[in-house]
């Protein structure tokens, strides 16, 4: 669709051309931008409904990572004595769990994004990308609330974030893009094959143990650590810990590999999602 430019919108209405699917790359970012208000409304709906359906509402966003932190600290830290990069155990696990929980919740929500909205998809047009995008964005509120607990936690242990905090938004962006990339794959697959959602919990669990949530990536020999970055969540989590606390070494080559990997997941996710998009209304 050609974007109408605002000066002649009164004289000439926008022209919409409908054609069969063409080529492997039709992603229209202009159109997506024009639908930004709809994305906002989807995010707003997801958050409203989620908080209305849980009795304790926003408190859940803190309880979930906090309780997991305690369990991890007890078993992995106190009992298994896994190294924590010189960070207090609680800070180490909480700083790792925050991005992980954001990521895993986003994956779960994005997987269901198409199937849960099939009644809308079969009745009205909008760029279908708006659904997984809003699923990934709506998790950011929980993430922000969870982040609040980190402040007293770090204050208690006298950890002062340094200049590295400036890079925190970049790592957050990486987490969002990676969640979107993987979410695109899963939501498209789930729309075509409805049993995918049974595979997702396993995938999430598997992915967690392959990521430095319960341990530090320093247990991987330095020589191979860049290879560990092929799991982009490794770069994200180490980046979070480093940028928030300022302790330890910046994740160097590993983060470059993670960024490249995340971009590959996102690009292939967009292509696969768009391939599904043209036929989704016929199958859901």
């Amino acid at each position, binding site marked *: 669709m050609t974007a109408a430019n605002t000066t002649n919108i009164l004289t000439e*209405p926008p*022209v*919409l051309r409908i054609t*069969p699917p063409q080529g492997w790359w039709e992603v229209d970012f202009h159109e997506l931008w024009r639908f930004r208000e709809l994305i906002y409304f989807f995010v707003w709906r997801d958050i409203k409904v989620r908080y209305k359906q849980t009795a304790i509402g926003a408190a859940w966003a803190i309880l979930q990572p906090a309780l997991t932190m305690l369990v991890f600290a007890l078993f992995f830290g106190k009992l298994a004595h896994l190294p924590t990069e010189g960070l207090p155990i609680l800070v180490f696990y909480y700083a790792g769990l925050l991005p992980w929980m954001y990521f895993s919740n986003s994956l779960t929500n994005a997987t269901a994004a198409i199937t849960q909205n099939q009644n809308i998809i079969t009745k009205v047009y909008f760029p279908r990308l708006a659904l997984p995008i809003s699923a990934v964005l709506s998790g950011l509120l929980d993430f922000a609330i969870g982040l609040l607990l980190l402040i007293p936690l770090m204050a208690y242990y006298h950890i002062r974030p340094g200049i590295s905090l400036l890079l925190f938004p970049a790592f957050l962006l990486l987490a969002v893009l990676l969640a979107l990339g993987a979410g695109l794959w899963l939501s498209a697959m789930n729309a075509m094959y409805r049993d*995918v959602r049974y595979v997702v919990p396993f995938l999430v669990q598997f992915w967690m143990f392959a990521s430095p949530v319960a341990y530090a990536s320093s247990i991987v020999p330095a020589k191979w650590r860049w290879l560990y970055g092929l799991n982009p969540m490794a770069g994200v989590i180490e980046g979070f810990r480093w940028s928030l606390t300022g302790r330890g070494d910046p994740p160097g080559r590993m983060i470059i590999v993670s960024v490249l990997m995340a971009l590959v997941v996102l690009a292939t996710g967009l292509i696969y999602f768009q391939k599904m998009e043209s036929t989704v209304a016929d199958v859901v």
Partner: protein
Amino acid sequence: MSDAAIRVDGIGKRYRVGQRESYRALRDVLSNAFRSNGRRKPKDFIWAVRDVSFEVKQGEVVGLIGRNGAGKSTLLKLLARITRPTVGRAELHGRIASLLEVGTGFHPELTGRENIFLSGAILGMSKAEIVRKFDEIVAFSEVERFIDTPLKHYSSGMGMRLAFAVAAHLEPEILLVDEVLSVGDASFQKKCLGKMQDVSRAGRTILFVSHQINQIRRLCQRAFWIDAGQIREHGSTATVANLYEANSRDVQASSDTGTNLGRAQFLRWEIEGANGDLANVLVRDREVRLKFIAKVAQPLRNIHHGVALYDQARRVLWGNGIDGVNLEPGIHELVCAIPSLPLQPGVYHWRVSLYDNGERIDDWDCSPPMFVSTEPRTHRQDEFAGILNVPSEFTIRCLPTEHVVMP
């Protein structure tokens, strides 16, 4: 720029058989891949829409009629961009809104207020637009008191009113509507139709799918009859609607033969002067001469001949008869002349009979039924239109005060 709002060129949509019915499971795909050893089953395809081309001018209201599964809804979904065509192309000039369901995007956990914003945004309104029209939408919906109550506590009627209030305030240049008016009660339908006519008066282009032919007659200037994925007929609504109705009744007519006692039998009937194919269609309100053709086997003396008119609900609208009829063996034409049949457009049934002293000779439910497709002269809302289609003239004047008698 030409004045075409919608231009469709050779559009087609093909489905794989079974694809439309259900989604697949990854498990099936994997197990099939192993079982079939790489051999693929030949695929069966069906064309839900095939090689359809047409143009709709700006401000035109066009109806799509056809049987279930004929492809009219698929055609609408192609234009609404809900699904992509397999071949062909289309061009739409203007802002588009599709109304394939009332209450698209409603969420039961959210309040009426929240749902107005959500549904409005999904149907294509901007936030500023919804804020601007919010009070108007609430007033139209008549659910002011419950606007901050979650939708799950609404009755279905209230939810429907709220949903339509949102839809009615869309301001597209092109509106695609599918069957939404078939839901809801009579007063709801009335409101919908009234609002839709407002929309068409405002010069908007509307493509309208409905099973209710009379709604199409009322709203649309032109109609397309979609059959087996293709446009079978197109033209003025009156012509297309009549052809469609005549066709859908033909199927029944062949099995509907008169009773035969051997002495005489009605064979067929027609409206005198009507042209060949449409001998059962009444197009003008003037003198009607009904011809009933009967084959008489034995001489009939002093018998009774009756004619009656029924509506779709099998209510007798009119009936009359004569006694003392004498018929010799042979083919006879029994003509009944009526100066005027001012009936609402629709389907009616004639019934003719021959009785000998209370004993039936033949009593025939005439087929095909009669279609009346005269110009409606009645209230535009069906429930106030009644049965008769008579011309009327309103005169309103102000009386001098001395004429007014106070009680």
